[in-house]
């Protein structure tokens, strides 16, 4: 039974490829693919994090609203 493929190919512009290749010289990244995979994972994790609301208590919300009222922006 054929082994399931774990990687696939995506295309990026050549100038970007060359720029990344220069950037990873002397770092722990052994290939452009490794670096791109790392960056994409970071970006996706950050986006997922951005989609979660932080806990904001009623008391905290009221402090913000009170500031807005005092400034004349809320009735």
């Amino acid at each position, binding site marked *: 039974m054929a082994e399931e493929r774990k990687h696939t190919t995506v295309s990026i512009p050549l100038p970007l490829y060359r720029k990344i290749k220069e950037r990873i010289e002397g770092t722990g990244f052994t290939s452009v693919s490794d670096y791109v995979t790392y960056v994409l994972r970071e970006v996706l994790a950050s986006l997922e994090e*951005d*989609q*979660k*609301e*932080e806990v*904001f208590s009623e008391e*905290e*919300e009221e*402090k*913000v*609203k*009170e*500031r*807005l009222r*005092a*400034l*004349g*922006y*809320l*009735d």
Partner: protein
Amino acid sequence: MDNEIVYIVSGLPRSGTSLMMKMLKEGGMELLVDNIREADIDNPKGYFEYERVKKLPEDTSWLPDARGKVVKVLAELIKHLPDDHRYIIVFMMRDIDEIIASQKKMLVRRGEDPDAVSDDEMRTLLRTYLRNLKVFVGNKSNMDVCYISYNDLMREPDLSIEEIVGFFDGGLDAGRMRAAIDRDLHRNKA
């Protein structure tokens, strides 16, 4: 401009919302304002507000009149906009410490206690508040938002204006929008 869409300028107080209203007006957009809140030392060029907005969520009957126009809606009230309209939102961001400093000056002039909440606490509150509001807006299918940094707008107006014009699908006069920025006024604005 699309006459089915309500165009909105939003943000925290002292983040440059009045400036953006003025820029969009100069750029060719029609504003929905009543000028009840008059210009003062805190906003010498005017507030560009429409008082009925403050009655959200109870009163939404003014919204049909806002279609095809730009109306200022404070960040807090964005969450009360009804789902039966489409909104294009320019949301003004600014360095939080600058916002707090400017708000405190305004509070003093209004005879309010500027230290009712410490700066450190307010900084944390506003950061979380804005973050949650971004999540809220990001989850609304009837809202498209463009975040514009007041600080970037002051540093490199052309880049920000290009972004806004693109967001509005063109049709805005970038030169007049740029001319609407009073650099002296805003350089000194805390």
